[in-house]
């Protein structure tokens, strides 16, 4: 956990005072809506279909137990007793009243939380691996660098009014769990000649014009992270389009200019600044590292007796699905599925948040993570406590063993909440989840990422779902385009459209036919859905999806 210093705490307090004044002036009529809108957006406040929505930043997806309790408090006191965890590791409250927002923000600030950099054309919250600092496959904890980026980017005078929003993701592990190739900038820590540095990817993104990011520098020494990012941002800020909102992201600039030319311009800019004030020195890095509290891990054996004597089949199924190895012996990383059968993906009630905070404090060194798959993670739990944790989570309704399976659906809020959406997403997710609710069947199907977006803005990451569903509206009826073969990992690829959009009433049947086709054609249970699609292409799936009934 990173602990804010006095500067950060004062900054948040001042922001609350400033926002309280802005809200008062808007409510009194002193500020017009046109004047107020950019101010509220700088604090994560949107106006959605039914109410204001507050998006709270969860820096690099890391929460302390008191912070999760603060979120529960906001849900309970100012909203309708729940929150929605997002695909950018943040949380949204859907029913906040403008007149109560300053108080909600004041309560959040007491826990070091805020809505800064969750909206507007600025550098957004940097996202990262939810297993950071816990997984044995990690080269270095990427959150240190995410925090460096936070300190550099917050209120950066040059980059507060970019052509469009700007999203950075960073991974320090071999397996990419941060989808770095579909971000404006993706950073991957890797080792070359014994030195650790970054591979820098630029111009990835989803939305209406999806692209996989291009590597513009294979190896960037770590001390140059900020100067190089600044060179990228400056190249974008000066040359990115401001005449057309749909062409204003950096991915369009990189695509139109070509990655080589973009890279050349960045390098030229960087040569001017690389050894300037932004060069990261050991003292700065040591100071930031020192503010990350690393748990004092107990010395424990792997596979303790408490774990091995628990033979309840439901526990064994959950353990096999939701637990992965930790870097410390006797510990584990636990994923809490926020995808119970038939529930809105990524939602948690205030009571669930409070209870999970208690469990994290008691069994998980007080830390919680949010994944871009919209689940929560206890990154450091003792293996001996797993049976107890399972029972507690099961009692809360968040122990469904479906992590990574077909019902672990990523879904945007869709037209049930969002002012931009064309179709609903949640009801489709719920019906798919119910159709595939049988746990044996899910296990038989194996790894399958199904992502749903209610409009072309792609907040549900449908382009990188093994199966992607995109809602489109035709004459006030809901239809869904289906893509196959997308993936968001280190070998990221955009899914291929299999044919015409299908009616909302048919989409669950079509998804089931796609899954059945995979089961019929796979070479063995070891061949995953995505591997089968890559081997077979989309034709056999297309044939079964559109076969006359």
């Amino acid at each position, binding site marked *: 956990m990173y602990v804010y210093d006095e500067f950060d705490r004062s900054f948040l307090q001042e922001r609350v005072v400033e926002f309280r004044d802005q809200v008062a002036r808007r409510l009194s009529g002193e500020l017009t809506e046109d004047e107020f809108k950019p101010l509220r957006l700088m604090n994560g406040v949107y*106006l959605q279909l039914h109410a204001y929505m507050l998006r709270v930043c969860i820096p690099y997806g890391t929460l302390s137990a008191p912070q999760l309790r603060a979120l529960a408090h906001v849900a309970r006191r100012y909203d309708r*007793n729940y929150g929605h965890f997002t695909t950018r590791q943040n949380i949204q409250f859907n029913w906040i*009243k403008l*007149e109560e927002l300053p108080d909600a923000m004041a309560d959040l600030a007491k826990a070091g939380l805020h809505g800064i950099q969750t909206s507007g054309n600025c550098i957004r919250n940097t996202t990262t691996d939810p297993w950071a600092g816990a997984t044995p496959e990690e080269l270095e904890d990427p959150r240190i660098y995410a925090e460096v980026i936070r300190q550099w980017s917050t209120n950066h005078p040059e980059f507060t009014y970019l052509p469009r929003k700007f999203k950075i993701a960073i991974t320090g592990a071999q397996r990419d769990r941060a989808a770095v190739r579909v971000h404006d900038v993706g950073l991957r820590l890797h080792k070359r000649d014994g030195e650790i540095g970054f591979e820098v990817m630029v111009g990835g993104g989803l939305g209406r014009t999806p692209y996989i990011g291009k590597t513009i520098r294979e190896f960037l020494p770590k001390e140059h992270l900020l100067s190089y990012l600044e060179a990228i941002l400056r190249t974008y800020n000066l040359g990115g389009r401001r005449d057309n909102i749909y062409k204003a992201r950096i991915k369009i600039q990189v695509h139109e200019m070509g990655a080589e030319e973009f890279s050349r311009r960045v390098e030229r800019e960087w040569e001017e600044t690389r050894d300037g004030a932004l060069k990261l020195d050991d003292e700065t890095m040591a100071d930031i590292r020192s503010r990350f509290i690393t748990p004092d891990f107990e010395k424990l054996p792997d596979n303790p007796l408490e774990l091995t004597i628990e033979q309840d089949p439901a526990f064994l199924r959950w353990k096999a699905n939701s637990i992965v190895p930790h870097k410390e012996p006797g510990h584990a990383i636990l994923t809490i599925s926020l995808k119970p059968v038939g529930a*809105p993906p990524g939602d948690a*009630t205030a009571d669930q948040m409070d209870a999970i905070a208690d469990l994290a404090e008691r069994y998980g060194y007080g830390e919680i993570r949010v994944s871009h798959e919209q689940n929560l993670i206890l990154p450091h739990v003792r293996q001996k406590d797993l049976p107890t944790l399972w029972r507690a989570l099961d009692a809360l309704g968040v122990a469904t063993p479906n992590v990574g399976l077909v019902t672990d659906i990523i879904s945007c809020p869709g037209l049930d909440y969002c002012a931009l959406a064309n179709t609903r997403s949640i*009801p489709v997710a719920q019906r798919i989840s119910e159709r595939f609710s049988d746990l044996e069947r899910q296990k038989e199907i194996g790894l399958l990422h199904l992502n749903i977006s209610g409009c072309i803005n792609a907040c549900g990451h449908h382009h990188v779902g093994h199966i992607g569903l995109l809602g489109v509206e035709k004459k006030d009826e809901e239809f869904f385009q289906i893509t196959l073969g997308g993936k968001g990992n280190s070998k990221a690829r955009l899914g291929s459209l299999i044919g015409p959009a299908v009616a909302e009433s048919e989409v669950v049947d079509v998804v089931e036919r796609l899954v059945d086709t995979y089961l019929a054609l796979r070479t063995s249970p070891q061949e995953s859905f995505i591997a089968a699609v890559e081997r077979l292409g989309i034709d056999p799936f297309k044939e079964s999806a559109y076969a006359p009934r």
Partner: protein
Amino acid sequence: MTSPLQRKLKITGPTVVTANRLRDGIVVWLKADGVWSEDLPEAAVGNTADEVLDLLDIAQADESIAVGAYPARVNIGEDGAVVPGTLRERIRCSGPTVAYGEAVAAS
């Protein structure tokens, strides 16, 4: 001189003017007396571009009560009841089509 708004406004049937209330964001509709209501059946219905433009003028003249006003198509039932004309407006009128929060946790 015709304003750009007038040139663009195309009315295809009975239409109301809707917005979100400034202080809490909830959905409201404009009544004939220029006051905002939380109940769609109380909304003033325009049937021509001129009628709807007049309502929009009233709505947009003062954004101290409601913001983001726009015209929304409605249907008029045989009994004269005013109901939303699109899925989006049905959801705005009646709330999310899915259970949420504790209603989900309890189910």
